[in-house]
């Protein structure tokens, strides 16, 4: 067993760090405050080849393994969790299913501009009445000649307001709960597709979230992703690899919380000495470092299973739930270490604490992850 990354993986990690310091740190506070989509940063990411990392070069990607991609998400999220999430949703949930289930024409037409970062992707699955319970969705797709007619309302669609291409899900056979849902690729300009208001969120505020409304939205038959009835399978598979991205994002946020805590606790003088000399602070820092390292290796493990073509669903769920919960816990501890200053706007830990919470919720709540894990362990 060798826990060392390759030289190439280390360099890619270092370069993403340098990228994030150069282009993301300077805007991170402002885009959080204004809930602004950092178009200029995403453009830079595209130029650097970061928006389609794990996809083949023939479809505009860079052809690196999923582990390397996840490491890049961690480093980007360390500077800005929202930007890291924008990249991760685009890569894992929008490009991912087209790369896995799309045919050659779909990959040429949709995946290629997305992997090059010219088009941004979104994943429209959740509905007002269907969150973790995907099967409670009500959207429908009815074949009419050579076109499917989509009707329904999707919500909490990350990248929704700014995406060019949506991967969405609708019932083609409402009576078949198991195999009645299908997946579709919907270009933004399709008549009948409208984008709702951008939601104001507690954290990851620079990530754009909205409703996506399909009203008699006609898409060509060729835009069916996979086979009729593959929808549920595709959605679940997307979540499996998407969760690795969220685990990596959570580790990035937690690492940033540790970075800030170390730096502050060495500077802050109380009772005549830096607070880092107090055991109370030292224990918090030690726990943070331990959990971050454990979480990092959990997501490395899940990603490396995926890269080897082995089952990774349980491991992705373990990485996701562990990293998300330790991230939330330690972001809160980081605020504690910063005291009153940490509770004020302008301190990075204040943002980190708000950003951390979402990792326990989206792409499957912590409770949903435990269902996956228990289902695997108790079979």
């Amino acid at each position: 067993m060798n826990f060392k990354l390759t030289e190439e993986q280390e360099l890619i990690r270092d370069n993403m760090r340098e990228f994030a310091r150069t282009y993301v740190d300077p805007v991170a506070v402002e885009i959080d405050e204004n809930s602004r989509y950092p178009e200029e940063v995403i453009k830079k990411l595209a130029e650097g080849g970061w928006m389609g990392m794990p996809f083949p070069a023939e479809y505009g990607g860079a052809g690196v393994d999923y582990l390397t991609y996840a490491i890049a998400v961690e480093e980007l999220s360390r500077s800005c969790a929202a930007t890291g999430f924008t990249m991760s949703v685009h890569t894992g949930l929008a490009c991912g299913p087209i790369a896995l289930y799309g045919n050659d024409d779909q990959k040429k037409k949709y995946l290629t501009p997305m992997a090059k970062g010219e088009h941004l992707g979104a994943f429209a699955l959740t509905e007002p009445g269907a969150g973790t319970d995907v099967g409670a969705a009500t959207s429908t797709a009815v074949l009419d000649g050579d076109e499917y007619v989509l009707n329904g309302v999707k919500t909490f669609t990350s990248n929704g307001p700014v995406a060019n291409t949506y991967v969405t899900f609708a019932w083609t056979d409402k009576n078949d709960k198991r195999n009645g849902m299908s997946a579709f690729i919907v270009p933004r300009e399709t008549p009948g597709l409208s984008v709702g208001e951008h939601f104001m969120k507690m954290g990851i505020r620079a990530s754009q979230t909205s409703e996506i409304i399909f009203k008699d939205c006609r898409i060509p038959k060729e835009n069916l992703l996979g086979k009729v009835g593959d929808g549920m399978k595709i959605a679940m598979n997307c979540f499996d690899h998407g969760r690795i991205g969220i685990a990596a994002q959570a580790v990035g946020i937690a690492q940033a919380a540790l970075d800030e805590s170390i730096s502050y606790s060495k500077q802050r003088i109380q009772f005549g000495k830096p607070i880092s000399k107090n055991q109370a602070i030292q224990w918090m820092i030690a726990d943070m470092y331990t959990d971050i390292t454990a979480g990092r290796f959990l997501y490395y493990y899940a990603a490396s299973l995926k890269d080897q073509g082995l089952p990774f669903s349980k491991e992705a769920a373990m990485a996701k739930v562990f990293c998300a919960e330790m991230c939330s816990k330690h972001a809160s501890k980081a605020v504690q270490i910063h005291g009153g200053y940490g509770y004020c706007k302008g301190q990075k830990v204040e943002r980190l604490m708000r950003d951390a919470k979402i990792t326990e919720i989206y792409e499957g709540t912590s409770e949903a992850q435990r269902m996956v894990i228990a289902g695997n362990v108790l079979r």
Partner: protein
Amino acid sequence: MPNIVCCFKWVVDEAYIKPSSSGKIDLEWAEYKLSDYDRNAIEEAVRLQEIYGGGVTAVTVASSDATKGIKDALSRGPEKAYFINDDQFENLEPSQTSAILAQVIADQIDYDVIICGEGSSDMYSQQVGPRLAEKLGIPCIAFVNQLSIEDKQIIAERKTDEGMEVISAPMPVLVTVLPDINNPRVPGLKDTLAASKKPVINIELEDLASEYKRLLIDKGLKAASIERNCTHFGAGPEDIKAFVEAIRKTGVIDRG
């Protein structure tokens, strides 16, 4: 079209320098990085190539395990690298580094312009560039913050204690560059992937003609005090004088 050579060093990242309890420097956990100023040197070489054409070759003298450094340098734009390496090359002093570089560059590389960083971020002796120029017998322009080529002459604006001097010199020429000469680009993903496929010419100690004896003898390394111990002064005229003198003694104020 100029043949451009840039020299770089793979160094201990000073962020990892921590004194051990004995006051010694503990390098056990240190990570390595491309010396800061050499990023500017490589960037300037690539920038000149983008304007004037030609080729960019990166050269380093390093310990044999510095392979990551070669990939890092190549991901920043040069098309090939000379990796002069030996297990004993970890802690060379400037006279050795410059002599080794001079031998390899003179024997194996066509060059019109050689670009070095003003110093390395570990030793910061600022000697290798000027020494290399002397060993090759070519003009040296140090501390440059603007560079162009006109009519086969290099035009360099260099910093002096008095201000600026604009220098023209025939090529081949060596320049050392300051950090404000450019903003090194961040290598993209594809640059890093491409770097692994670029040619690397491996040169080992036995391929070199001489032994390169150490002339600067290292007698030890200790941690500099990082805690700041404030020296307090009062407000009287003598105090003011002593305060100013203490600051002057640190050598941080430019005069002239």
